[in-house]
Structure formats: C-alpha cells, structure tokens
C-alpha cells in the first residue's frame, strides 16, 4: 500500500504557482491511494496543454500524445489491455475544442475509462486564448479582442446528450471532493467524465472568485430526462456527481466466438 505522496513521480511540474492543475494532481494521488492502485497497472493518457503534462508527474505509466487525441489513445489502450486502469485527461481546449468529436464518441461508445478535463476556460499553454468554455465576453485574448462572442460549451450537458454514463463536476479548490469523485469514477463501469473547474491564475485571475461561486449540488440521478433538465438550467458552477447510470461497456464480449482457421474462407 502506497501513500498518496508515493504516487508522485518526482518530476517537477512546469505549472505556474497557484495553478489549479496541482490540485488535480493531488486528487489523483489521493484517489490512487484510496484505490490501492498498483502504479504499474495505471496508465494516464493525455493530449497537449498545461493540464496534459500531468501524466509525467504520476508514478505510473503515461502517454503524452498529441493535441486533442487523449481519448482515442486511451480507448485503444483499454480495449487492447482491459487489465489496465486507463485514465484520460487534458484541458478544455484539448478536450472540447480540437478533441470535441472524440468526447462525443467516447461518451456513447462507453469504453471503461475515466476522462478528467481540467477546465480553466482558457488555452493556458499557448498563452491565454479563449477556449470553448470561455465566457462570451472575456476580452483578454488578443485573438478575440471583443471576446469570443460565442456561447460557451456545456461539457456536462453534451456528455449527457452523447450518452456518458457517469458525469461529474469537481473544483480544484476542493481536492478532497475531487479525489472522492475520481474514486467513484474509476469504479464506475464505462465512460466516466469529470469536468474539473481548475483555475488558471496566470491568464484568468478572475477565477479566484470560484472560491465564492462554486456550489455543491446533490442532484445525482440515473434519469437522463431529469439530468438533462438540471444541466440545461445549470450555471456551470455547481459541483457534484450529476448523473450515473451504468450501462453495458464496450467491447461487448461474445463468449461463443470460436477460434477459426483464418485461411478457410479463401478455399474454393
């Protein structure tokens, strides 16, 4: 049995002081300790971004892929190696902008992986451009000087509409709550999605307010209609496990599959 600390790899994070991603790192180590996770049996898969640097900081296997593709790498790995605990992760840009399609299809495919999006409503690594979750009026990026002027992306509502079977929102200001969610997510069979409000003090200092505005909602349901009604009215700052409805995971095993002679079908 390892302590939470022993799940840290010792590689020094490149993150800015105060970055919310530290809390996510800590929540993962705590959840791993609680799960008694064998380090060599866990694989953390990420895309590109500040958040996506996380795998190297954990004492386990990791795959730091390309921008937006954490989910397919994770799904391929899990299907090929069902014995592993595969956790995909990344940022809001990685997951909801360039990676949006995989998010939809991972939600509906329901491979048994966890997906953590560290949502700071900004592209941290490329120095502060708007992401899909950035407020429409946020004028701090030179790329969108009037603000993105686009309705923010609603990750949990989209996860639900796409068929995710476990949907939660955590907050970097509450790493224990997050560790608990993660503990539950790992044990949930199927695709478990956790959006983490993870502040970026460097480009979004206003996110310090989250301390006051994020609020716990005990609304967990297994009814998609109820969950939809809640999530479509939600202010985006509630935290909690919102939806949980286990359904068959993919791949479905076909026990009647017989070893066949591959060459048979060519014979005349």
């Amino acid at each position, binding site marked *: 049995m390892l302590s939470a600390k022993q799940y840290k790899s010792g590689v020094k994070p490149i993150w800015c002081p105060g970055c919310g991603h530290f809390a996510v790192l800590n929540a993962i180590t705590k959840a791993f300790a609680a799960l008694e996770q064998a380090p*060599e049996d866990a694989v953390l898969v990420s895309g590109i971004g500040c958040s996506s640097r996380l795998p190297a900081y954990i004492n386990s296997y990791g795959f*730091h892929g390309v921008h937006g*593709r954490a989910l*397919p790498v994770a799904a391929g*790995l899990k299907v*090929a*190696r069902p014995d592993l605990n595969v956790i995909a992760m990344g940022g809001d840009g990685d997951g909801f902008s360039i990676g949006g399609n995989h998010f939809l299809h991972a939600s509906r495919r329901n491979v048994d992986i966890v997906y953590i999006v560290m949502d700071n409503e900004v592209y941290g690594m490329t120095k502060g451009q708007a992401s899909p979750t950035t407020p429409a009026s946020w004028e701090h990026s030179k790329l969108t000087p009037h603000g993105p002027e686009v309705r923010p992306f609603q990750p949990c509502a989209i996860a639900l509409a796409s068929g995710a079977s476990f949907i939660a929102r955590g907050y970097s200001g509450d790493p224990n709550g997050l560790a608990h969610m993660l503990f539950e997510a790992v044990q949930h069979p199927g695709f478990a999605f956790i959006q983490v409000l993870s502040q970026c003090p460097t480009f979004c200092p206003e996110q310090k307010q989250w301390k006051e505005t994020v609020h716990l909602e005990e609304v967990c349901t297994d009814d998609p209609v109820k969950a939809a009604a809640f999530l479509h009215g939600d202010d985006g700052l509630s935290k909690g496990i919102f939806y949980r409805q286990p359904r068959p995971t993919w791949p479905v095993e*076909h026990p009647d599959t017989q070893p066949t002679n591959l060459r048979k*079908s060519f014979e005349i």
Partner: protein
Amino acid sequence: MNNLTIAMVGSGGTGVVTAGEMLLRAAAKLGLYGVLRKTFGPQIRGGESAAIVRLGSEIVTNLSGSVDLLLVLDWSNFQRFADEIPVTESTILIEDKAAGKYPANLPQPQQTLTLDFLGLAKTLGSGHSNLALLGYVTGWLGCTAEITELAIRHRLQKHPQETIELAITVALGGTQLQLEQPIPLKPVLPLPTHASGVNNEQNLWVANGNQLTGLGALEAGIRFVAAYPITPASDVLEWIAGEIESVGGHLVQAEDELAAVNMAIGAGFGGVPAMTATSGPGMALMSEAMGLAVASETPLVVVDVMRGGPSTGIPTKNEQSDFNLAVYGLHGDAPHVVLSSLSISDCHFTAGWAAEIASERQSLVIVLSDQFLGQSSQIMPPTASTGFSANTEQAILAQGEAGEPAPYFRYLDTDSGISPLALPGQPDGMFTADGLEHNAAAIPSPKAADHQQQLAKRLRKLDSLVESPHWAEVHGQGSLLLICWGSLYQVSLEAQTQLRAKGIDISVMGIRLLSPLPLEKIKQAMGQARQTLVIEQNQQGQFAHYLGSFDSQGLGPDQLSFHQYCRPGPALFSPVEIVAQVEKLIDTGMSSC
C-alpha cells in the same frame, strides 16, 4: 495464347459482377488460374458495371489490357468503360438481344453474335440474364454442370434455397444455349487434365489483396485494428472484422481517421500489435498522429490502399500517387518505414513483414497497396505462412536483474538505435511516452544534445532494414533494368516475358522496401545493367524523383542515372504499354514522363 480475357458489361442491376465472381470460382474449380476485376459507374446500386475476367492455365496476376471476348447485356453507358475495355477489330462480341443500340463511335468487332439471354431467363421464370450468360460461358469453358452449380451455390450461399435453385436452372439453360449457338472461338487454354471434373486435388484459393493484407496482419499477430471505412480500403477492415475476434483480438470502428490512428497507437503502446487501414484522404488525416508514433516510438502499421488523387479524386480506380505522402508526409524529421505490396498474394507477405518491423523496431510502418491489388480477386495457390511475428519480445531487458528496480531509460541510445521497451503492467518500467522531444529517460527536453541523440537514434534503428532479403523481388538478367513497385511489378514481369519472346532480355526489380531505400542494392543492380527504366502510375514520377534525390549526395562516381515512364490512373498499366516503353528506350535511348 495461354490466357484469355472475358469482359461482361451490364447496367441497371443486370448482375454482371455477380456473374464474374461465379465465373472466377468456376474456373478455379476447373483448375484454371485467373483474375477478376470489377468496375462500376458512379451509382451505388443499379448503375452500369463490368466484370473483367482473365483466365489462364498458369498463374495470372494482372490484366492484359485487351479483351478477347466481350459479353454485353446492356450497351447504355458502355463508354464509361472505354478506358478499361477496349474494343478492337479482333474482339469477339456476344450481346444480348435486349442490350440496346451498338454504340456509334465504337469499331466493329471481328464477330458479333446476338443472343436472347433475357428471353431464356424469362422462359425459365427468372429475370436474370446474367445467369444465363454465366452458364453460356462456363459451358463454353468446359465446366461441368456440377462446377457451375458449385460456383453459384457458393456465391449465393446467404440467399433462400429457392433463389439458388432457380439460378442454377437459368445458368444451365445458358450452358445448353452454348451447345446450340456456340461462341465462334475455341477456348484456347490448355485445360488441366481434370477438366472433366471438379478440381479437388489442387487446393486453390480465391482471394483479393485486401483480404490477404488482413490475413498477413492477423497471422503475424496484429490483435488490434481501428477502422474508418473508405474505398478501396474498407474490405481490409471488413475481412479482419469477421476474423479478429476468433484469434482474441478486437476491431473498433472509430469516429474518424484521427481516432482510428490514435486508437491503434494506444493499443500499440499497450504492447498489442495494432494496425489501421485507409486510403489517401484518410492517411492525410493521420499524418500528425503518425508523427507521434515516430517520436514516441510506438509500433504502428498503417495500410494505404491507394486510389486516384488528389483530394477525393477517383475513389474506385488505381493510382500510385500517395508515394510522396507516405514517404515525406510527416512534419519534422520523422524516419519511418514504407513498404509496397508487389502482387495480390504478396499483400499477405508484406502485411506480415510490416507487423514484424513495426514491433521489432518500435516504429511506424506504412504499407502501400493499391486499388488493383486490393480489390481484384485472384485464383492462386494458398500463400505460404510468412513466419513473421509481431510479438513484442523486446520488452525491458534488465528488469529485476539487479535484484531491485534498475533505473529505466525508455529511450536509451543503443547501438542498434532500438531501446528497451517496457509495457504497462511491468513494475520496473514505468515511464511516460512522449511526442515532445525528450531525453533517454523519457523526460521532456528541448536540449540540442538530447534532440540530436534521439533524432539520430530514431534514424539509425531503421538502418539495418536495408539488409533484409525482402527488400525487393528481382527477376531475370538483362541489360535493361526495369524498376517498379506495387501492382506494376506483376505487369512488368509479364512485359518481361513478352520482351523475351521478342529476343529482348530485361531484369525486373519490384521494390518492397521503399523507405529506408536499399540504395546500395539498387545501385548494384543498376551498375550491372546498361540502362534503367523506372515506371510508376502517377503524374509526377514521385518514386523516380525520390530515387534521384539520392544522387549527388555522395558526389562519387556512382551517380544514379535512369530513365522514367510515368502516367496517372485511372487506366491500369498493361504489359503491352511497358513493352512499348522498353522498346522505345532501346530504340532511341530516350524516354519521357
């Protein structure tokens, strides 16, 4: 003439392609060899279509470029096949009474016979003139009723019993008709001795290259395949889908090619040999992730069944124009392996080799197949087991040797360039694979020394591949060396035979290992020849440029000098076309692209 090309053309769902498939199988049962090429108009269903079947008493691997016997059920839109089914004065034509008007601008063939296939079918209670036609042809070839019947049963196995019986009846009606109104041409094939019965002795196969690519991959140990459908690669994936579970693997239909290639990378990282198959547009989308496989040193096989380009291009026709993308299409310095399949049956071998290389060198291997190889069915002897294996035995070496975990350098700079690979689950090998530049310990690093070390290592690990005996197939000894790759290899061999008949000896080299290029071996062969001709099926002479790019480098005396002939698709290369180029070169010492 020990071979014979039969083309059947129809339209509006006349089913000539089905008849072609049955004909090929009947021929196989007769002990003949042959190739079937299907071709369609743009419609998904019910459009005009054609089946070209070339049969021979010895192995037939490609088409001849001409048609001996043309059978037409419907003349409308015949001009769509003008590129593929040339009508000359020597063509023998058999048309259905209901086929419509003979096309105005077509030359009159040698002989024409107009028969009432549709009427015959109708008399027998069916609308399927294609089956009457089939029986007419199989009868003429000398197939017994049993053979024709077996071929029909095989093709229609999923249909109701009733349908099958009626089909047989109609076909045998066609066979009968053949006795009454014979084809004004004798089948000139020296039929195998057992022609009077079913060939049970010789265990022949009917397979296309796409299926054999799948077979090669699975036999070598590929156990994860990610798929996104695309013509003409889909049937690689479809064949595998039907078989992979039975060997304990999985196929995932992905949401797009970006997902497909990254899924395969994920599986490969997990130590499960993985592959995806696609065509040009899909491989273009995979470019970024293929670079990730290179940088993170994750084994990955990508099969590109080439079609006409650029962009959506001509999806159902043959071309060899993805060479540039395959060899050069990654950003950064990204050494990887590119192979080409040299025949329908070689798809099996090359896919197996690709799986082995990817695993053994922890590298990206692209296999270039093409629409002809992939989608043409061939009668062939069963392909031998390739013996290739993608088993990842190179997983970490020293593990536990020291009694306690040794420090693990995932990207160790070894002599071979191949570093010890740990797989998830191994307690002593934990690391984070990375597409960011990294040092030997897999820690991200932008340092010049680390970058150069890792770049050099990734280049070096492929070096010794050029020593592989599989680098090419070389055939013959002539003063002219013909270099080609992909589906042009078999066509070139036939050209070689035709040239020999004219007293001209050439050697033919089909290159299987396109990158890294076995330059020394090629130079050696070129040194032995007086002249070299490089041929390929694309507009810009992509391979020839590539070959030429290795010139000047050494500034030594052995500069590469060669002629080239290239042209794009969609028309297939024919042996005659190659013969003409070789003769032109010999005559004038000149050649053009």
